[in-house]
């Protein structure tokens, strides 16, 4: 899986670089510079998050995790995860570190899907800080309210698809 993704990804990168080079050398070098700069900027944060999530998972009391959001927790575990997702503040490092730590310390995979879907769709912090100032208020409310059932549906579909 990992190799197949790499192959596909780098074919796409190659095609985009070719198109950029056909436009001009400036576009090509600007793309390479911007993309490379982005990696250097993000890598320390990703590294702290990924390695940190491993230790956080190890330090968490597993006996406490399972009854709340474990694989056997079912719909109530999904609901707990969704509320946690909506209440998670901060950017991607925070949300993904929590999701990864939960998964490693015994949370059920559909429950983690519910958490990350709710967090992506309607983390209250993000709605207020980012979406409200940039979008018409009516659209924000409309989007957030039709999104309410989506994490349940995502968890349900994930269960129907079987374990990853």
């Amino acid at each position, binding site marked *: *899986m*990992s190799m197949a993704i790499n192959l596909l*990804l*780098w074919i*796409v*990168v190659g095609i*985009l670089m070719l*198109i950029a080079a056909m*436009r001009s050398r400036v576009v090509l070098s600007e*793309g*390479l510079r*911007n*993309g*490379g700069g*982005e*990696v250097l900027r*993000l*890598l320390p944060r*990703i590294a*702290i998050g*990924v*390695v*940190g*999530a*491993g*230790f*956080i998972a*190890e*330090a968490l009391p597993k006996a406490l995790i399972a009854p709340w959001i474990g694989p056997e927790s079912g719909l109530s575990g999904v609901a707990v995860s969704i509320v946690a997702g909506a209440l998670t*503040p*901060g*950017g*991607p*490092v*925070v949300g*993904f570190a929590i999701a*990864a730590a939960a998964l490693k310390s015994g949370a059920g*995979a559909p429950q983690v*899907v519910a958490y990350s*879907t709710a967090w*992506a*769709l309607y983390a209250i912090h*993000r709605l207020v800080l*980012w*979406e409200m100032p940039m979008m018409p208020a*009516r*659209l924000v409310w*409309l*989007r957030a*309210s*039709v*999104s309410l059932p*989506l994490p349940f*549906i*995502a*968890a349900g*579909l*994930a269960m129907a*698809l079987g374990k*990853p």
Partner: protein
Amino acid sequence: MSTATIAVVAFSAAAYVYARDGWDHFRTILISDAVMLLDMLPKVLGGCLIGAFVTLLLPREKVARWVGHESGMSGLMIATAFGFVLPGGPVTAFPVAGAFLLVGADAGAVVAFITSWTLIGHARTLIWELPFMGPDFVMWRLLAALPLPILAGLLARAVLRAGLARAP
């Protein structure tokens, strides 16, 4: 709460694990996470390069006009596809969504676009989700999330048609 908070929590957790389980266990966890990170590194780099080139090459105004003129199911599908392709964070995505409205896209298409960008957007998935969650989990979650942007768009249209909310 930010990376700094996570760093403090992670450091405390690492110290606790070291004190409780000793060096061998500490090293096992460290190595397994570092290996996962290294394995995902080429994907993060690929994701960043794709994002940078798409930003330079994609005619955003043209796509916005395209989404604006399409209605029905095809409007939702184009909006979903565009959400998948568009790189960048909220500073990029929300102004694009606002531009959709300006050129006449319906609220359903805008909702489908934002939902797609947050749930299946390639940048978020490649750069952030893969290193944290690993490829198996990510592919599985993506599969489950695939129908959701269209569904959100249809729900938004239904809510507006039923008069439960007013169009933005």
